[in-house]
């Protein structure tokens, strides 16, 4: 499975250094490889023998002002695409894994309510990757944070470390809802993969964002945050956005507007 190849950059380095290396790599790639190849790569996915490229940084923009109260189409789409049982349908809800959930926020003073989906924030400096003893938790060159199912020992240290409660342990044997391109397993930890199987196929979108668009809300936008011409980059330039727990300085791949 292509998504199982740990092509992470595990070396501790500053965001500045990462950006510099990223920019240098992009420039070098741009000079040596025909731009057409690059475009093809992003638009049509990549073959299994090609590594993920740090020229790309996959990310998501969540517009909380458009996120509809009571709608959980993104959650349903994610569970269908990735084959996990929704928490509400599980026999053991507290032990059921979740990859994405709807969060309702309320300001106790002003009573203002906000809705938003919460999932793995695909940090550039992910605490889960730092603490993982075996290196099973890793960040791909294109910014997607994943768990290698072959080397996860189920210690749950990443779950202790994640500030977003984004990770879940699979507590019981899985039923047959599993998808062939989304490996899961009892005793291992899992979380949102930004639909890495779709990204690598070249779909250019995630199941949650597709569902949100289909429902007419357009609250979720997936794309390459490194490409200044991409829709997500354009919107991020225009809209004021925030990172959740920005104080932790983790440089998140998911940005929120309207929180």
């Amino acid at each position, binding site marked *: 499975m292509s998504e199982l190849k740990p092509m992470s950059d595990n070396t501790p380095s500053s965001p500045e250094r990462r950006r510099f290396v990223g920019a240098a790599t992009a420039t070098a790639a741009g000079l040596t490889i025909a731009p057409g190849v690059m475009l093809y790569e992003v638009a049509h996915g990549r073959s299994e023998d090609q590594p993920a490229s740090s020229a790309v940084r996959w990310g998501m923009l969540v517009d909380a002002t458009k996120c509809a109260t009571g709608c959980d189409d993104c959650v349903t789409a994610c569970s269908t695409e990735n084959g996990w049982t929704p928490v509400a349908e599980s026999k053991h809800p507290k032990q059921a894994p979740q990859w994405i959930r709807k969060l309702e926020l309320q300001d106790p003073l002003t009573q203002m309510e906000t809705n938003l989906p919460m999932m793995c924030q695909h940090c550039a400096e992910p605490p889960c990757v730092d603490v993982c003893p075996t290196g099973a938790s890793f960040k791909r060159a294109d910014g997607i944070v994943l768990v290698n199912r072959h080397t996860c020992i189920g210690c749950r240290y990443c779950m202790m470390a994640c*500030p977003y409660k984004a990770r879940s342990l699979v507590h019981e044997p899985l039923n047959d809802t599993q998808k062939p391109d989304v490996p899961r397993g009892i005793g291992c930890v899992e979380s949102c993969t930004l639909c890495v199987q779709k990204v690598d196929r070249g779909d250019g979108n995630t199941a949650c964002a597709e569902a949100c668009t289909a429902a007419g809300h357009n609250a979720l936008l997936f794309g390459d945050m490194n490409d200044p011409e991409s829709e997500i980059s354009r919107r991020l330039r225009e809209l004021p956005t925030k990172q959740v727990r920005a104080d932790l300085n983790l440089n998140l791949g998911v940005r929120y507007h309207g929180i």
Partner: protein
Amino acid sequence: MASITFREVEGSSLKYWLLFGALGLFVLFGAAAWNHMHHYGHVVTGMDNQIVWGLPHVFAVFLIVAASGALNVASIASVFNKPMYKPLAPLSAILSLALMLGGLLVLVLDLGRSDRLIVAMTHFNFKSMFTWNVFLYSGFFALVGIYLWTMLDRTVKSYSKAAGTAAFIWRLTLTTGTGSLFGFLIARELYGTSMLAPMFIIMSFAYGLAIYLMVLVAAYAWTGRTLGDAVMMRLKSLLAVFVAAVLYFVVVYHLTSLYFAKMQGVEAFILRDGGILTMLFWVGQIVIGCVVPLVILLSGLGKQRTWIMIACALIILGGMAQMYVTIIGAQAYPLDMFPGLIEKSPFFDGEVHSYSPSVPEFFLGLGGVAIALLVTMFAVKVLRLLPASLDDATVAKLEH
């Protein structure tokens, strides 16, 4: 300096074998509990995706912390050149190895994929405190093993101080590593502080010595050997100092947190509103684990052996309560992703998470305790670890 005769425990009495069998039974229960959890998955435990580390971790971390503390007596003898402690050193070393073994077994058998232990030993991420701990634990076994060898084999006795010093430095590093397992976590309010490393070290001194004293007294009482008051009084005074230091660290830790507005929610939860956790903190950790033992050890009651044993037992119980509050308490309080806002979700965001340990978790933890005691019991039978007598006259001769 007078010489001391070390002798194996005969270990042929019915009482010895009954105790041996009883401990063995608990080891078997522990194995059965692991098999159950491994077969059905963590769904059979009380742990979930909110409380991800549960009772097995309480037992495991307590045993690992106590293990490094149990080495104290040996360290005082060889590192700080106190001859009175020399005869007490071999038991100290074997007990620390046994407790470490028990703790580690519980820790690794609670893994979601305990069958993948080999992966943990072959794949390393050196930015992870867990990885560092893997090396610290392995090194501990090696160094304390060598140290024990220098104590038991006359031909290598001259290396005892060097080995003892190395083991002492290593055990301080090890407990720093154990405390930092939590100290290096940014997500939860009660973790992410360097206070945890020194606090765990001082806790290890107290818990380890309390266990050591109970094992020492039991071994001497059950084998009919003499254990003089000189040894007991010295060790109980030391224990009182350690317990007082634990109390000091706990007070400073919570006072500092209380001062910061962002921490007041979680502090109020632990100190006032946390239900069972609040009770475990005040009654278990503070009163049973610190205040009552201090009163016993520092008052006239501390001159009686029975009361010293009661104080030791209370310190151990208080230590378990402390680990429970430290590990479960920090997870029970919801993550504050949006400070100042009320959070709600179908995935239990914004709610205090409850936790009821299951029977398999409890027996897995007890299995670790049983294996530690079983190893110690067997070791004193086959190795010359215990002085034939520790009466006051013999001990007094050592001092001169």
